[in-house]
């Protein structure tokens, strides 16, 4: 390349080349996946973060800094260890590794607000025993969104009469300014504790020496203050920005519903068509994101209802019953009744084929798995029964239930002694709109029997679903536990009651729920979703939704969730019919005579394995199971500050991860920097001096044509 003579610096061409070289080298340096990074960090892969949720007025959950929070690790196994973190330790801020049994209100109150000393919290899983309890939910769930308020039923409002979730500590509804993670893997916890013991333990009261073991947690949440604020910001972004930055999403999913006798979903029912509604909830939550086993709070109830639906569909005179039965599984009831409020809204506005006028009676399944001494309590609403006709209807409803229960000696239906409020239930949202006769069946008379309501410990063990050792997964799938038998009895009572309420007279005693179905459902939802039965009832593209562990019941923001799909297809399998349509006919049944997409839903499912266990035998299942949108009406109406409807939203985030590493002292870093500066200055000075005196220092032999330097 051409060069110009002399000049005080390199010419543009060579400068450009030099820049290109440096740029490509820096690029090479920034490429990740290198072994030095593996020498420094140990990533923690099996963790669950605490994320930020917002409602009309508040934000709850946790937040970290945008580039993660780093702190020196300290293991807290007893309450006394907190002293080091809060006052004594010389190297704040600390990252606390808290034993699961210490994760309670008292300890969290001490840690909250001390952001100068606490960088974050990592909680290990405790082993719950028979006397412990932990419920991060509030003591009065969904307060203010049911029927009882200061202006209507004030003696029942705010759980004045009965504190439903007595053991609740409300931690999940607090706002923390540091990240909190759950360590799900015991092996990772051991590694962390080993790092702590190797580097962070102080010798004989003196301060521990650097390098110290530290942890970094990333869980920066984009949304702030409340749903109203974050939705407004997202709305402005999406309207005016080319690259919109949405900061939060409303919690939403789908309700699953089906009818006993098919109805035309494109139209509406006549006012004379009466419907008995059987309802339950599908979802739960916990302190941590997407961990919600919900065994007693949700799974046992909807499994019972699935079994009851199967039993009822087997009755021989279903087609001639005077009234129809609607089975509905509401999603989002944990967050101020998202699903049921949306269904009521749709019914009132004609967007749902069944209207409020069509509802004859309402039977809801609350928490039913922890019955003491066979009692199943019937809860009714005292306020609506002040109306004489409603009181009589409710009385008839209770009498029918007791009659159906008489044939099942393992279930004893009990009425309340005095007028008591309804527990938190979807029925409350229906009663807000219209006085219907309804009952909630539950295993508790006063406060919940569930000691782990909406927590990470509400697992199979909480409802005594345990399997013998050394059995294969297939054997576990078909093993009928005692809990399954008990729930099957409740399902039998429910199915018979629904049959009678729908006007059936003859075959009530032959309706029987199958404990085998109940136990397979419990196994799939609570222990291992990836089993042969679940695989056979799902569509092919949903296969990967089944993990090797239990299914989680958090509503989330993407829909439908895994659990919603599995419940939908389980209900279709249990209540639908296998037709011999081909795959093309199944996807478009309009051409086939006697099949109608308005009446039925057709799904092409995987089917069981053939006898050689090599291939699946897919089939077309026809059922009346459908999904109905469960997004709070507040978002439909853009009333983001609404106190009438649920306004829960989840913040968005970019990166969630956790890792441990060693940190060096600030002194060492400073020394490194000064040494570097020193070497640079020294070499500049030396080079300048030598270069200036070069012709004196280097006497080179004269070469012809050489230019000395």
């Amino acid at each position: 390349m051409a060069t110009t003579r002399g000049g005080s610096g390199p010419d543009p061409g060579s400068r450009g080349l030099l820049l290109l070289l440096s740029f490509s080298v820096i690029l090479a340096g920034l490429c990740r996946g290198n072994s030095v990074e593996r020498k420094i960090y140990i990533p923690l892969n099996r963790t669950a973060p605490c994320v930020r949720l917002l409602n009309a007025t508040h934000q709850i959950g946790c937040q970290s800094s945008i580039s993660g929070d780093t702190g020196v690790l300290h293991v807290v196994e007893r309450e006394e260890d907190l002293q080091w973190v809060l006052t004594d330790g010389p190297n704040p801020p600390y990252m606390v590794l808290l034993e699961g049994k210490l994760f309670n209100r008292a300890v969290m109150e001490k840690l909250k607000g001390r952001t100068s000393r606490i960088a974050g919290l990592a909680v290990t899983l405790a082993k719950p025993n028979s006397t412990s309890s932990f419920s991060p939910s509030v003591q009065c769930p969904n307060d203010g969104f049911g029927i009882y308020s200061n202006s209507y039923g004030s003696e029942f409002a705010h759980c004045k009469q009965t504190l439903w979730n007595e053991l609740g500590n409300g931690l999940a509804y607090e706002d923390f300014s540091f990240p909190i993670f759950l360590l799900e893997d015991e092996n990772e916890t051991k590694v962390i504790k080993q790092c702590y013991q190797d580097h962070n333990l102080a010798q004989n009261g003196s301060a521990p020496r650097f390098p110290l073991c530290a942890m970094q947690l990333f869980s920066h949440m984009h949304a702030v203050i409340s749903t109203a604020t974050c939705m407004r910001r997202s709305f402005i972004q999406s309207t005016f920005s080319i690259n919109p930055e949405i900061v939060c999403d409303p919690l939403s999913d789908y309700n699953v519903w089906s009818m006993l006798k098919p109805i035309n979903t494109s139209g509406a029912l006549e006012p004379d068509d009466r419907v008995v509604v059987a309802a339950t909830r599908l979802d739960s939550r916990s302190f941590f994101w997407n961990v919600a086993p919900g065994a007693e709070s949700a799974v046992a109830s909807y499994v019972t209802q699935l079994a009851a639906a199967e039993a009822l569909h087997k009755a021989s005179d279903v087609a001639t019953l005077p009234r129809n039965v609607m089975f509905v599984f509401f999603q989002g009831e944990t967050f101020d009744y998202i699903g049921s409020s949306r269904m009521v809204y749709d019914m009132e506005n004609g967007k749902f084929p069944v209207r409020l006028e069509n509802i004859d009676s309402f039977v809801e399944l609350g928490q039913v798995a922890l019955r003491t001494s066979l009692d199943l309590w019937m809860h009714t609403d005292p306020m609506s029964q002040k109306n004489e006709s409603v009181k009589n209807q409710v009385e008839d409803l209770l009498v029918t239930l007791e009659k159906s229960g008489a044939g099942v000696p393992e279930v004893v239906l009990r009425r309340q002694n005095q007028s008591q409020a309804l527990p938190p239930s979807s029925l409350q949202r229906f009663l807000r709109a219209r006085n219907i006769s309804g009952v909630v069946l539950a295993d508790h008379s006063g406060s919940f029997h569930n000691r782990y309501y909406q927590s990470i410990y509400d697992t199979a063990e909480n409802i005594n679903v345990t399997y013998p050792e050394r059995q294969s997964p297939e054997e576990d799938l078909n093993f009928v536990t005692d809990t399954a038998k008990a729930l099957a009895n409740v399902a039998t009572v429910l199915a018979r009651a629904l049959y009678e309420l729908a006007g059936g007279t003859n075959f009530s005693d032959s309706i029987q729920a199958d404990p085998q179905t109940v136990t397979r459902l419990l196994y799939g939802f609570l222990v291992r979703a990836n089993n042969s039965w679940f695989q056979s009832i799902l569509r092919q593209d949903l296969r990967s939704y089944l993990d090797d562990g239990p299914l989680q019941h958090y509503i989330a923001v993407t829909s439908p969730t895994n659990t919603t799909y599995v419940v939908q297809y389980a209900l279709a399998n249990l209540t639908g019919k296998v037709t011999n349509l081909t795959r093309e006919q199944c996807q478009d049944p309009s051409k086939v005579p006697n099949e109608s997409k308005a009446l039925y839903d057709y799904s092409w499912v995987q089917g069981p394995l053939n006898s050689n266990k090599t291939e699946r035998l897919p089939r077309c299942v026809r059922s009346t199971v459908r999904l109905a949108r469960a997004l709070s009406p507040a978002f439909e109406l853009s009333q983001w500050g609404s106190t009438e409807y649920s306004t829960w939203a989840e913040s968005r985030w970019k990166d969630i991860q956790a890792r441990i590493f060693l940190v060096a002292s600030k002194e060492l870093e400073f020394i490194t920097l000064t040494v570097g500066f020193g070497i640079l200055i020294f070499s500049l000075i030396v080079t300048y001096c030598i270069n200036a005196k070069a012709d004196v220092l280097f006497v080179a032999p004269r070469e012809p044509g050489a230019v000395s330097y």
Partner: protein
Amino acid sequence: MTAAVFFGCAFIAFGPALALYVFTIATDPLRVTFLIAGRASEGLKSINPEETAPSMRLLAYVSGLGFGITSGVFSFVNPLFDSLGPGTVGIHGDSPQFFLNSAFMTLVIILLHVFWGIVFFDGCEKKKWYILLMVLLTHLLVSTQYYSASLHLTSSGLAASVFTD
């Protein structure tokens, strides 16, 4: 280990090379060319015959420095950017002084390359073949020692630099 360590190690490793560049090479565009492109004196002579060609010793020095900087950058830039994060080496039992050691090593390697360049060119010119052999042997010795010491540690760049010389 944060920005302090990043800049500290960067200055340790590349400070002298930068000083040499600033005072002896940057002043003359031709030397910059030789730094990057190596031996191109014949081509340059044909483009610009009035320009007096620099001496062989200068060429040797410049090309040695060029190779040294390249090798240093490729072997050290990866650990250097890892030192920007909050963590330091040591959780699996390695020495916590890893970054400082690597920086000094890189500094030494760069200077070694300069010396090797000058000595090698001198040997070639004076046709003293034992000098060439010495340079090659010491080069291999240092590379082998460095490579085996950091066998479980760093960069592919290190292997690359062994073969580019």
